[in-house]
């Protein structure tokens, strides 16, 4: 894809993921191998039932990485498309045996026709690493009426409570809330919004809020993404969450 048309943060995130893909997949391979599980704590889809029956549906994973999710859903009969901005991540998807279209593009400008999917979803994917003011309208555009947008990301409370000096989660508001949007991490950029701004953005794009599923790890849960201190925090407060939205 032509990277000159990318936003500045997308180009930086692309470079980050191309650099980190191999190490990321190695670090987390075992933790995320099952595919059908959500978020930091890998809560099984069989428990949450976010996507429902996907057999025969056109499904887009936005920010598919090595396509662990897509491969599992394709086995259930979904007509999968995987999208990622990192060619290196897509190489991992191909190596893992993804035999459906893998599209190298940003979710901020989807290369798909209007109303071409029944389900668009991401698990800490595109809606973490793109500007939601660009990518949410795009997701709504490519969904058919009645289609489902479901994505997990870090909760706004998680964004507030990250303590940069100690590199840990605190039970304390560590930064102001109202300007929550772009989060700089040095080598990459993530995005988050206040709860009300998410809800207003969904409404403005014709997406009805069906559920906000706040993910709580089991007492004995572990994660390759987070440590024991994070786990203790995540037992008390939502670290990550899934928005489930229906296109009107």
């Amino acid at each position, binding site marked *: 894809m032509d990277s000159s048309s990318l936003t500045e943060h997308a180009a930086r995130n692309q470079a980050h993921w191309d650099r980190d893909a191999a190490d990321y997949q190695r670090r987390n391979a075992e933790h995320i191998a099952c595919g059908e599980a959500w978020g930091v704590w890998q809560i099984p889809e069989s428990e949450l039932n976010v996507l429902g029956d996907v057999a025969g549906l056109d499904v887009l994973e936005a920010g598919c990485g090595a396509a662990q999710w897509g491969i599992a859903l394709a086995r259930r009969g979904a007509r999968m498309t995987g999208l990622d901005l990192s060619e290196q991540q897509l190489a991992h998807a191909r190596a893992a045996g993804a035999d459906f279209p893998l599209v190298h593009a940003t979710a901020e400008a989807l290369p798909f026709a209007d109303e071409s999917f029944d389900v668009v979803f991401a698990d800490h994917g595109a809606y973490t690493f793109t500007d939601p003011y660009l990518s949410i309208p795009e997701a709504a555009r490519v969904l058919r009426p009645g289609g489902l947008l479901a994505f997990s990301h870090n909760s706004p409370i998680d964004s507030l409570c990250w303590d940069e000096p100690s590199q840990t989660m605190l039970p304390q508001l560590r930064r102001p809330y109202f300007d929550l949007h772009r989060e700089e991490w040095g080598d990459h950029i993530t995005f988050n919004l206040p709860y*009300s701004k998410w809800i207003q953005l969904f*409404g403005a794009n014709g997406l009805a*809020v069906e559920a906000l*599923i*706040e993910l*709580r790890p089991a007492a004995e849960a572990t994660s390759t993404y987070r440590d024991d201190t994070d786990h203790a925090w995540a037992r008390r407060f*939502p670290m990550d*969450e899934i928005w489930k939205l229906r296109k009107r």
Partner: protein
Amino acid sequence: MSYLEANRENWAKLREFQERTARRNWAKTEFDWGLWKVPEAEIGAVGDVSDLDVVELGSGIAYWSAWLARRGARPVAVDLTPSQLEIAALMQQEFGLEFPLVEANAEQTPLPDASFDLAFSEYGASIWCDPYKWIPEAARLLRPGGRLVYMKNATIAMLCAPEDEDAQLTADLLHDYFGMHRFDWPDGTAEFHLGFGDHIRCLRDAGFELENVWELQAPADAQTHPVYNYVTAEWARQWPSEEIWAARKVA
């Protein structure tokens, strides 16, 4: 003593304060929301109410109902505390605005099904009643397509609420988010606040579609409220102290 009785007693004790502020609140022609007086004209949560049947749930001295009546609505004010409704009745005479005042628990009113276009609460049922009871009750009272609009303390503010009601909020999260529902205070009163996920589920289960949420920020020049000073203007410039929720009963 149940939380309903404790809450009623608490409001009865506040009669003197309510009487002092009643006239000023009833006299208001322009309405603003909450501690930071954000104009409704800016938010637009309530919208055009002319010719609407409105029920105010946990109305207190019913000054919102008075404002709605002036805007052409037909309000019914519901409150649990007789002394608050007595003040409302006095104000009705003084201001020449008549509408029904109903002494009832907003979780279980004696009003008929599908008889209102708008259910409204500002720091009324929205915090003093159990959402798993008052929100389904609001759904029962509304006609299909009717709207529910209410203001409450912000979810994030409640996580920071100290046990001591005279203490001010800090940046420390003192309550767990998971399981948040009922907040019991040392004087026996109780408030109710759900996390966002549970709150949305509660609305959906009662037959509402979420329309909007506003999290209110104190403006740069705001001063800490002289009475409701549990949250300082400085805190509320950084984090949300109040929320307005709007939902529509699915037709």
